[in-house]
Structures are given as C-alpha cells and as structure tokens.
C-alpha cells in the first residue's frame, strides 16, 4: 500500500466510526444525528465532490465522480442519510481495493517479467568493477559469477558452466556452455564462473528486445478491448438519461407515485452506471496473459493475436527447421551387399542381427575414412555418425568425381563411395529401391557393400504436437515445403498432417497461403508456423505468423506475430490453449459484468432492489472481475525455478 492508499484507508475508518456513532446516538436530537452523518460523509467523500465540481467547470459531466456525488447527495435530499453515506463509503472502499489490486497485479506481472539485469561485472585495467549494463561496450570483457544473471549478449572466452534459460524460454533443463559459445542476456549462470566478450550493447541485447516486446504487446488492442471502449462511451450517458427519466416521468404519470421513491430508484441507476469493472478487467486479463505466456517461452506481440489464435481453423507449417530439425543425420546404415555375400558363403540367414551390426560398423568406418577429406554436409554427417578419430594416413589416392562421389584407397582396398550414377558408371549392381533422403552407396574392390541413408530428422515432439493441435478444434493442418514430393509426403504422413504441398518456391508459398486463407470461414483464421529465416513474407501474410526458435534469432522475432523461443513444436498447441483460456476469461468478465449490471438496472427500475444491491453491481462486480482476470497469469505448469 502506498501513501495515498493509506490516507484513504484512514479516512474510511474515521468515517465508519462516525457513521456508527450517528446510528447509535440518541434519536431525540435529529440535528445532532445529521451533523454526524454529514461530517462522516465529507471526510470520506470530499475528494469525490471536489473532483466532480472541477470536472463540471471543465465541461466533463459524465464521470464516476459526478455520478457518485449526484447519487449520494440525492439520497441525502430524500432523507436517506445512512444509505447515501454508505454508498460513498463503499464506493471508496471499492476504489481502494481496486487500486490495491491493480497495483498488485502490475507489480506481480512486472516481477514475472523481471529479467532485467541490475549490473555487469566488467574487467577494466586488470580490475573487475560493477557497472550499469548500459555502460558496457561491445568488446568489453565481463565476468559472470554463479547465480548471476547474464547482463549482455556475448561469447564465452573462458570457463564452462550450465546456464538456465528458463526466464526466456520456459525450458527448465539448463544448457551447457563453454569457450567460443554464445551466451544470451537474461539467462542465469548456474554453477561455473564464466568470462565473456560482449557482442551487443545493452539496448541491442536479447533481454532489452524481449522486454520491449512484452511491454508494448498490450498496446495492440484486442477486439474485446475495443468493444469495451466503445461500450463505455455509450453506456454511461444512456444509463444517466434513463435515470433522469425514471426520476421525473413515472411520478408525473402514475397516480400516487411518490417522487422520493422514484428518485431512489433512479439513484440506483446512477450507482451502476460506471463501466469500471469492464474497463479495468479486460486489459488486465490480456496483460496477465501476455505475462503468463512469456513465462512459458511464448512471446505474443499483441493482445489481438490471442483472439486470432483462439479462432484458428487452418494451421500451415513450414517443414525444414520447423517440424524437422533441419540438420542432416545418418538415418540408416544398411550393409545389404555384405550380408548377401556372407550368407552365400556361410549359409547364415541374411538378416542375422550380430552380423548386420558388425557389417554396419565396417561400412560406416570405410565411408567415414573416404569422406574424411571432404567438407560437404553429407560427409560431415557421416563422420559425426562414426564419431571416432580418423587416421588419414590410411587413406590414399583420393579422387573426387564431381556430382557422383569419391574414389579412394583405404588400407589397401579400393573403396567407391557415391550415388547411383557412380555405381552405374563403374558397372556395379546396387540397391535401387526407393529411399527417402540422400543415399550414399559403397562398393569395395568392385563388390557392392551397401548404402548409408542421410535425412533430416523429425523434431522429438512434432508428432505429439500435431496430434494435440488437431484435437484443439483446428480443422485442417497443412504443410508447405520446398522439398521434393517423396520426402514431403513421407514427413506429412508420419506426422499425420491433412495436406501437403511440395516443391514450392518462397513466392509459391505466399500464393498457396492466400488460397488457403480464402478457404477459411468468415470468422476462422489461418496461422502459419515457420522458422522466420526465409519465410518472412509468408509469416507476414498469415492472419497470425508464428516463428520457432526465437532465442538468438532476431529475424524470427522481427517477422512473426507470435514467437516461440525454443525449437519445440509442442509450444504451438500450448499457445492455442493459453489463447483460448484468456479469451474465455475476457468473455466471462464481459458477460458477468454486463449481465449483473443489466439485472440490477431492471430490478431497481421495478423498485425491487435497493442502493446496497446497486453498490454490489458497481464495486462488487469490479472486484470479482479483477480477481477472475488474475487467472490469466497462472498458466498450468508455470513453476519458477531458482538456483543459488
């Protein structure tokens, strides 16, 4: 509680005490009673009266101060002193609670997003000094101790440590870093001491960019927020006019209707005429949602995108780097030729497991040796799969046959490594079945040994993610890829996608996407998921563009509307789930607030309720709606980890 709130609380307490005295005081002296009421009223409500007066002078009539003043003074006039005072008192209590809860939520969201480093330890003139992160320049050497937050983006020059990226990615498994590796600001150094060279100034660092993004995200207003703003503009004047009519017309038309009774009913109207509950709770809901999602490593760049995500009908994906790892790896080593030969010689079964393993190792080793002089990505992936040191002295007479393969002598054996063309050229019979990916055939001294299959790999959680997405009301899942038909189809089948369009150039992707957008229903939306590297135009064209792997990739953060900080497709269904929850909460608040207010308006017009009920309609509804919107902050599984 700040100073203002404390002052308000004190006034509320004094005023309540005076009210109690006024109620229990001897009834005989009417004027003494009224004096106490008035004193109490002025103490608790003077600021409201002052503000109302000031606004009237400025020509601004319809604000809550004016309405409260009118309602309470009106009550006093029809000799409902206690009720008039109570309305003012409860209004102030409500206001106090409201500013308390808004302040509290502002603070808790700020804490949640608090990834701002407080200081940096810079090495200057052989000494380590603590400075403000924005005083550090590119090229400076900084020291990060265990438990400290990395203040600026940099490259490790010394030390090995685990870093906790959960503040940025929501990923709880720490990542190991060592010399030469990039570290990003906002992460926490868990255990080792690391020294790093700064590569980006504070303003340009990851932490600044993310903070900037989340803070400005709620500037882009959602449709519900726009609706509320419009609603508030008309709601208050209409209710006030109705109140006026209610106070004047029935007493004139209906015989025996008392002026006081109808004024009382009109006053209830005025009390519920403030749209505060909606106006506060809806932005609060979205703001909390942005905070909650960012904790899970999902950056939503505007409140409006929650609505689009919740209404997505068609979800289109890029393949490489989005659903697959985008790294080529050895998928299969098949010594098919060696097995055939050995089974003919020894009479063993062709698919003898031990033999197969032994031959596979030999095949991989031979290939790795031959490929040891090449830097081609395929060669690299084969060497990586082999994983052991290669003695290049054993390899001689290496000859590269452009576009076909390599010929070399390994430990006296003549080894041929290459594609089908090379095999045909050398007149070697090879396995000609259809294989998905790049195939490297191997022959030794004229005999076919087998092949190695290299392909991109699906991301670990891709299958599960697609399943979840399909379960969440998405009508169609589509893949758009530049890859060939066989590979594209296989990946789509394995993931269970509904449709796949292959061999698309970047421009074709935009055209295809537009075609898909035209297939969505009136309210339905299309989401596109890409890696943000070469599909920026597609991301921009979709109703909502989602980029994967945002951590450390400025391109992805720039191009997309929603950024998944990690590489995991499983964050996509999660983003949909969060969006639906937030839209749900916002709708609940709208329906609840408008509903309760309407009911109270009707009941007070009929004279069934009293001012007390009306106060609930104002203050009570606001408080309940604000509490409800807090739920947006709590996204399931949102556990804050701390290392010390």
């Amino acid at each position: 509680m700040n100073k203002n709130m404390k002052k308000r609380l004190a006034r509320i307490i004094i005023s309540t005490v005076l009210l109690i005295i006024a109620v229990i005081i001897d009834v005989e002296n009417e004027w003494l009673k009224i004096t106490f009421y008035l004193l109490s009223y002025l103490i608790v409500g003077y600021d409201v009266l002052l503000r109302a007066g000031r606004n009237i002078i400025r020509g601004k009539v319809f604000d809550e101060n004016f309405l409260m003043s009118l309602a309470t003074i009106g009550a006093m006039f029809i000799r409902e002193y206690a009720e008039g005072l109570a309305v003012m008192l409860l209004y102030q209590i409500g206001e106090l609670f409201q500013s308390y809860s808004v302040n509290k939520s502002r603070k808790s969201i700020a804490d949640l997003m608090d990834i701002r480093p407080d200081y940096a330890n810079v090495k200057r003139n052989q000494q380590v000094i603590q400075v403000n992160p924005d005083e550090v320049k590119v090229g400076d050497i900084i020291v990060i101790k265990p438990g400290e937050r990395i203040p600026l983006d940099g490259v490790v020059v010394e030390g090995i440590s685990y870093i906790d990226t959960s503040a940025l990615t929501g990923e709880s498994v720490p990542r190991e870093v060592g010399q030469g590796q990039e570290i990003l600001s906002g992460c926490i150094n868990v255990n080792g001491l690391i020294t790093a060279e700064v590569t980006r100034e504070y303003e340009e660092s990851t932490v600044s960019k993310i903070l900037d993004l989340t803070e400005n995200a709620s500037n882009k207003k959602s449709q519900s927020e726009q609706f509320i703003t419009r609603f508030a503009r008309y709601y208050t004047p209409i209710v006030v006019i109705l109140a006026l009519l209610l106070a004047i017309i029935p007493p004139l038309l209906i015989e025996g209707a008392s002026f006081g009774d109808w004024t009382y009913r009109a006053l209830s109207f005025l009390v519920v005429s403030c749209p505060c509950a909606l106006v506060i709770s809806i932005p609060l809901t979205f703001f909390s949602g942005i905070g909650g999602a960012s904790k899970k490593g999902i950056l939503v760049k505007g409140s409006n995108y929650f609505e689009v995500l919740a209404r997505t009908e068609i979800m289109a994906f890029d393949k490489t780097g989005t659903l697959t790892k985008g790294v080529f790896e050895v998928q299969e080593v098949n010594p098919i030729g060696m097995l055939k030969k050995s089974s003919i010689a020894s009479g063993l079964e062709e698919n003898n497991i031990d033999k197969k393993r032994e031959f596979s190792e030999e095949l991989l080793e031979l290939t790795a040796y031959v490929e040891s002089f090449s830097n081609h990505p395929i060669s690299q992936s084969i060497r990586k799969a082999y994983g052991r040191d290669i003695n290049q002295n054993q390899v001689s007479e290496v000859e590269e046959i452009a576009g076909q393969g390599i010929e070399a002598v390994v430990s006296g054996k003549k080894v041929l490594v290459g594609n089908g063309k090379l095999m045909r050229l050398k007149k070697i019979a090879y396995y000609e079945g259809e294989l998905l990916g790049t195939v490297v055939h191997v022959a030794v001294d004229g005999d076919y040994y087998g092949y190695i299959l290299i392909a991109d790999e699906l991301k670990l959680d891709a299958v599960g993610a697609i399943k979840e997405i399909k379960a969440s009301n998405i009508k169609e899942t589509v893949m758009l890829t530049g890859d060939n038909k066989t590979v594209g189809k296989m990946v789509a089948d394995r993931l269970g996608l509904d449709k796949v369009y292959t061999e698309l150039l970047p421009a074709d992707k935009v055209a295809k996407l537009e075609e898909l957008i035209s297939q969505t229903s009136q309210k339905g939306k299309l989401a596109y998921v890409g890696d943000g590297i070469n599909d920026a135009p597609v991301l921009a064209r979709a109703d909502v563009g989602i980029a994967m792997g945002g951590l450390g990739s400025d391109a992805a953060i720039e191009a997309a509307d929603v950024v998944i900080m990690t590489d995991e497709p499983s964050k996509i269904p999660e983003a949909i789930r969060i969006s639906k929850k937030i839209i749900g909460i916002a709708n609940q608040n709208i329906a609840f607030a408008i509903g309760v207010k309407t009911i109270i308006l009707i009941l007070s017009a009929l004279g069934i309720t009293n001012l007390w009920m009306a106060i609930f309609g104002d203050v009570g509804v606001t408080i309940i709606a604000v509490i409800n919107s807090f739920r947006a902050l709590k996204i399931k599984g949102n556990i804050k980890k701390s290392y010390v």
Partner: protein
Amino acid sequence: MKKKFNLEGLGCANCAAKMETAINKLDGVKEATVNFMTQKLVIDGDDEKMAEIIKEAQKIIRKIEPDTRMVKA
C-alpha cells in the same frame, strides 16, 4: 517519430481510454496508445508537430485525470 512517456499515478482505466481517444484526435498524431497496465503513453506523430502534440497531450491528461503526471521515459 515515436515518443514514450510514463504516466505516473494513472489509476483509472476508463480515463486511460479517454486520454487515448483524445490524443489520437490531435493534429499530426499517427497513432497514440495509452497502456493502463504499464502506465505508458506512446505517441507516433509528425516530427515537426511533436512539440505541439506533447504540449496538447499534457493538457488532455491533466484535464482527464489531474493527479496523473506525464514524465518522459
């Protein structure tokens, strides 16, 4: 040109919406947003009219919620 301000003491969400509407109507303003939650005002407007815009915005804010202070961020 974009200018950012902190609105200290911004306590009423409806007032924030009113401020935003009024500032958006000022001459030379391309887009203005008042964020009730972060208590921030961002004005995107013509460079040469910026000084005038800021002055007018200040007036608007004082008029709608006199306790709010507009401070350069």
